[in-house]
């Protein structure tokens, strides 16, 4: 296969040049950041890894109350402070004219946010005393919205049960949203495994790639995210298909073993991830639109912003479309047939290579959507996808490696488990819960919830 190495080279050159081109603009935009990233000549891998944690987290929100005519009235001049786990005050802000505040936190971790009741103007009070403080954890680069409900007059609401129980709906909603993001990213991973047998450790980089492409069109080229996003998704799909055609298919034809290809995907993952870091830098960055939304919506004790709702709705629509396509269309049925038994499918006239190409393209596109939504929820980072990869594996294995519907079910369970586990364990360790589920499911039902037994042995 003399053509294979050449094509591989071309593909890598294309990939790197696109990214190289992309962040020339980002580089200019981040020129003012340069002072914060001193060119340490002795930079060790450890130091670079640590850079991930320097990305600050922040909390935003606005203080408002509804007056008698149900008009929202912003409250100015209220002090809100953040206290670290060691009891030290790390940030303080006073609400502006429109009632908004912003607390920038020095590092990720658990913080307690408190409203200073003495600064609340007369005639207004917190809806209940205990809602004047709230404690939660922030991951690197995360931005969260916090709500302190105010009412006119004296507090009406009495404390309702334990605070842990009260957190359940909020965490369940966040877990569901996170699970949908994992699911969208993981559909490709599972179907690529199902159709080719490849456990693609570089799939996390597909997710990151989608987010970085969207960042490129959004921030560097200045397109609105609603235009930049779809362009990024399409391009990621084209790249995914091209990657199969130009790289993986020649390897399959060469007779490279699946184990060897798995190790190749690890090498690729490392290469791509550090090309991303090289071009994008270690800081996390927000998209230009929808990064900060301060008007919160409260529903059944769940505080959310508009983008949360849109993420959930769009994810569900896309996943339902995938499920319908797999169940009803020709290519969908062919995909399931190939995943079920490649040789039988091929002998019954299905063009297996075409199916694999479509799976790569669609899977990469969906992964890009996942990456963009992840970038909206947290921020865009050079290793966002890699951090998601282990959760994707947990979800896919849980649901049944190689099945499409399994990836959906498993991912949502993993998302819920990750968020709800913060009720009992520190949120720094929330991903541990996903791993424990993974180990447990491998012990009792290695084929996963929807998998079949003969696949695993």
């Amino acid at each position, binding site marked *: 296969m003399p053509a294979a190495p050449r094509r591989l080279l071309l593909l890598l050159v294309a990939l790197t040049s696109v990214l190289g081109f992309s962040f020339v603009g980002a*580089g200019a935009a981040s020129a003012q950041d340069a002072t914060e990233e001193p060119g340490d*000549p002795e930079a060790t891998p450890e130091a670079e890894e640590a850079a991930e944690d320097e990305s600050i987290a922040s909390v935003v929100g606005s203080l408002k109350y509804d007056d008698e005519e149900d008009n929202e009235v912003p409250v100015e001049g209220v002090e809100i402070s953040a206290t670290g786990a060691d009891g030290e005050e790390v940030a303080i802000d006073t609400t502006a004219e429109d009632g908004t505040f912003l607390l920038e936190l020095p590092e990720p971790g658990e913080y307690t946010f408190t409203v200073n009741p003495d600064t609340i103007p007369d005639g207004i009070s917190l809806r209940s005393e205990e809602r004047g403080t709230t404690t939660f954890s922030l991951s690197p680069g995360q931005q969260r919205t916090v709500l302190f409900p105010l009412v006119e007059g004296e507090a009406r609401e009495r404390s309702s049960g334990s605070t842990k129980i009260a957190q359940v709906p909020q965490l369940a909603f966040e877990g569901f949203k996170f699970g949908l993001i994992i699911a969208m990213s993981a559909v490709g991973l599972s179907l690529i495994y199902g159709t080719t047998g490849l456990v693609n450790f570089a799939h996390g980089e597909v997710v990151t790639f989608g987010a970085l492409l969207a960042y490129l069109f959004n921030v560097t080229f200045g397109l609105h995210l609603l235009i930049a996003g779809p362009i990024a998704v399409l391009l990621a799909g084209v790249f995914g298909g091209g990657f199969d055609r130009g790289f993986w298919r020649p390897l399959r034809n060469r007779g490279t073993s699946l184990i060897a290809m798995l190790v190749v995907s690890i*090498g690729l993952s*490392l290469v791509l991830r550090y090309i991303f870091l090289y071009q994008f830098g270690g800081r996390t960055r927000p998209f230009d639109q929808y990064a900060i939304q301060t008007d919160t919506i409260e529903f059944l004790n769940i505080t959310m912003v508009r983008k949360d709702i849109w993420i959930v709705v769009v994810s569900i629509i896309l996943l339902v479309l995938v499920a319908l396509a797999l169940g009803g269309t020709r290519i969908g049925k062919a995909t399931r047939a190939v995943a079920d038994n490649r040789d039988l499918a091929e002998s019954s006239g299905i063009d297996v290579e075409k199916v694999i190409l479509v799976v790569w393209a669609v899977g990469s596109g969906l992964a890009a959507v996942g990456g963009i939504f992840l970038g909206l929820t947290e921020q865009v980072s050079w290793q966002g996808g890699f951090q998601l990869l*282990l959760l994707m594996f947990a979800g896919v294995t849980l649901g049944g490696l190689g099945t499409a519907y399994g990836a959906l079910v498993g991912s949502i369970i993993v998302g819920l488990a990750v968020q709800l586990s913060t009720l009992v364990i520190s949120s720094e360790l929330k991903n*541990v819960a996903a791993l424990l589920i993974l180990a447990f499911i491998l012990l009792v039902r290695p084929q996963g919830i929807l998998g079949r037994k003969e696949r695993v042995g």
Partner: protein
Amino acid sequence: MNWSIIIESTLEAMVTKNAVVFALAAIGLNIHYGYTGLLNFGQAGFMAAGAYGTGIAITQWGWTIGPAALFGIVLSVLLAFFLGLPTLRLRADYLAIVTIAAAEIIRRIVKSTQYSEVTGGSGGLNGIGRGFYDNNPIDSGLDLGIVSFSERELWFMVVGWGVVVLCMVLTYLLVRSPWGRVLKAIREDEDAVRSLGKNVTWYKMQSLILGGMFGALGGIMLTLEQQSVQPDQFFTPTTFFAFTALILGGAGRVFGPVVGSMLFWGIIQFTDVSLRQAIANDHIPTWLMDGVQAGQVRFIIAGGLLAALMIFRQQGLFGNKREVALDDH
């Protein structure tokens, strides 16, 4: 471009700290991957178990180096048990997924603020095993003209390479024993071995434990060399550096991982120092690459090397092509 600095630091990197540590980690991976066909992608986790076991026993409980190192090794054995139990019955890729995840979880746990009283959190532990250098019998450095070593470096090299040689001898003896032949048979055809009445899962478990212990030794040597331990030294690329070193030297060969580790760090250090020299002398404009980015190139090289070796030369430099051509079970 100061070529004497480049050559000096390249040669030094081939025989000092990282070469020793990753030779040990790769010897362990060789037991797993080279001889048994197991995909352990969490060697960094075993190294962390050794390093943190030793560090905690010394700094928190005041143990001496010997028992503390033993404690680190015991921890790695326990880790192998926990990882092997759910996965070794299953196909090779499940072990890969679980081990890579476990190593990352271990890093997060030792880094978390929740256990920082024991593990030192993101700062890690310092002042581990002062006795190591206090007992240094070598009282003068060595100057070989182009490279020179301090007495501390010499002492570490003597002990470190001594441990590496011991591990190589042990590997040599083990893989030629009946036990080692069973491992190689499992690598070639698991079902055939099972049909001969061998308990394949238990042999795989023994292999996972032994290789994990070698990995833990690597972590312990790292701790002793720098007298400290930081969580981010055990991030995922650490495992793949060891894996690349192994494949480069040749899996399934006793010398493979050791030669591979020396060459790997030679390559990494050479490119690293050359790039920094080129940047310092304005041969590379800063818009193209700055000092921080030069430090990232090593990961791109390591990953590219790993992928290229697996595609074009799975047997590495010294391996036997027939032996390392893994088929899929």
